């Protein structure tokens, strides 16, 4: 009789153990699978910013300091009034709250927030740049952003940042600072063509190094802890989430829709809530006919970019350029595909989508719920059939991020 009793006790313990674990998790509103998903979305799983072998000074403190100064430098613009910080405002998650940004002119897309950007595999909404330093060169020469040229950048660095530059990158050659660029106006292009190959290379190198210093600074912009991170840390530590770490039942229900019925985690996953990839989600085009084809057009641009990882200004060996070498060219997928943005801090930065097409989060939720066909290419979304209560819960959850 003793044996069966012992057996009974063991089985009893096992049952109550399993049940207790289950009810403990349930009492916090999540089952085991949901808790695991929650963990993968929290800062607990954020790794260190990955190394950038294409940028020799990526983690150099002097480069970070120079990069911070250059990020805020209005002298690097045609009218002496535009810096990176004009559109990437620190107190506003490094974005500008506008549908389209204002520099020298008006951009055709929405400015992107920069916290955590050191983790991005591709830069811009369409991923036409493969590193942060190559990205930084784009706005400097864009006619609607800084409106500058690479020769003027080189001249400005020589005149105002000679010492910190030379300490990092070696002596600056004498510079011709007439506006010249292969991407500029007809006059600027003609001035560029008139330079010798050696002069062009010297200017390109100073230009690239300017981008590398700015990139070093941007790599230090880390995501901030949000209420969801605190909630998940408490659960993982086996504590009941209270006070700062508590979520309401509505917010927890919203997380479940995000991870379940809404399938948001398919594209907004990992601690940055992005899969670092491009999707057509049927967002309407602000222009008719469509002029912005997103990732489709970026494939050739990033490949042809002289400042890409495989180019002459990269510090990486070709074998270290995997992102570019193994780039997917599934062209049929990429028409009007844009990068899944990080959703951290999202409630605080309307309007939404690549050109600020959707003014509010309820409109974003409606966009996903309906899954309208794409104006060009094919949407990856399918209608969700969310009830009003479910939409309210999803909205509450997005505000926690």
């Amino acid at each position, binding site marked *: 009789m003793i044996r*069966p009793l012992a*057996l*009974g006790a063991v*089985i*009893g313990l*096992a*049952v109550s153990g*399993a*049940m207790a674990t*289950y009810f403990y998790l349930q009492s916090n509103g999540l*089952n*085991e*699978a949901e808790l*695991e*998903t929650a963990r*993968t979305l929290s800062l607990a799983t954020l*790794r260190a910013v*990955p190394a950038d072998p294409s940028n020799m000074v990526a983690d150099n403190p002097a480069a970070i300091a120079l990069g911070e100064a250059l990020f805020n430098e209005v002298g690097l613009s045609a009218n002496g009034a535009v810096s990176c910080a004009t559109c990437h405002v620190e107190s506003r998650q490094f974005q500008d709250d506008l549908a389209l940004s204002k520099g020298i002119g008006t951009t055709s897309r929405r400015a992107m927030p920069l916290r955590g950007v050191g983790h991005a*595999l591709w830069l811009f909404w369409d991923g036409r740049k493969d590193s942060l330093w190559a990205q930084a060169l784009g706005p400097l020469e864009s006619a609607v952003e800084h409106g500058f040229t690479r020769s003027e950048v080189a001249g400005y660095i020589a005149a105002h940042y000679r010492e910190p530059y030379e300490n990092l990158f070696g002596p600056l050659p004498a510079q011709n600072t007439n506006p010249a660029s292969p991407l500029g106006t007809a006059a600027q292009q003609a001035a560029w063509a008139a330079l010798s190959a050696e002069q062009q290379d010297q200017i390109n190198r100073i230009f690239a190094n300017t981008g590398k210093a700015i990139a070093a600074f941007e790599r230090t912009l880390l995501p901030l802890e949000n209420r969801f991170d605190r909630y998940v840390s408490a659960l993982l530590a086996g504590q009941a989430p209270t006070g700062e770490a508590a979520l309401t039942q509505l917010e927890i229900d919203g997380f479940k829709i995000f991870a379940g019925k809404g399938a948001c*985690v*398919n*594209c907004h*996953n*990992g601690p940055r809530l992005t*899969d*670092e*990839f491009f999707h057509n989600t049927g967002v309407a085009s602000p222009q008719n006919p469509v002029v912005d084809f997103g990732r489709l057009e970026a494939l050739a641009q990033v490949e042809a970019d002289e400042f890409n990882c495989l180019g002459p200004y990269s510090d990486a060996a070709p074998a270290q350029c*995997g*992102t570019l*070498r*193994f*780039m*997917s*060219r*599934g062209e049929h*997928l990429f028409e009007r595909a844009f990068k899944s943005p990080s959703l951290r801090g999202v409630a605080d930065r309307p309007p939404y989508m690549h050109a600020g097409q959707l003014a509010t989060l309820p409109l974003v939720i409606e966009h996903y719920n309906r899954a309208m066909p794409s104006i060009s290419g094919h949407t*990856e979304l399918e209608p969700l059939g969310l009830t009003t209560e479910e939409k309210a819960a999803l909205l509450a959850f997005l505000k926690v991020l």
Partner: protein
Amino acid sequence: MKKIFAILGILVLAAAAFVAFKMFQPIPDDLDLATTRATDNGHFMVTVSPENAAYQRNTLHTWIVEITTPDGAPIEGGEILIDGGMPQHGHGLPTNPLMTETLGEGRYKIEGVRFNMRGWWELKLAIVAGEISDNITFNLVMK
């Protein structure tokens, strides 16, 4: 007494099944996760293994593919074309992996694999060796 044990037993099973159901709901439980398998038409035996077993979501990683005849003789001079995706989401791989090296003794290197979501992934290999070609689909689960 026996009745009580029977009830307890059923309870344990039910609790285990319930937790399992909750945890693995989306991925079919009869998924063949074997990493050594015969190709669709039985021409080759293929083994795949990640170079680093601890590969993480959204990082590029490398796989080693070993190809032999059904009797275990290594296939030299083969070529591998790679495709794949998530059958439950109807999309492909986010990268374009390539066979980059022949390592000898029927072993080949595939670089550039990246999984951008958790869940069930397929890695499809088309193998061509001389006159013979055959296909194989491996199932993987990204945690």
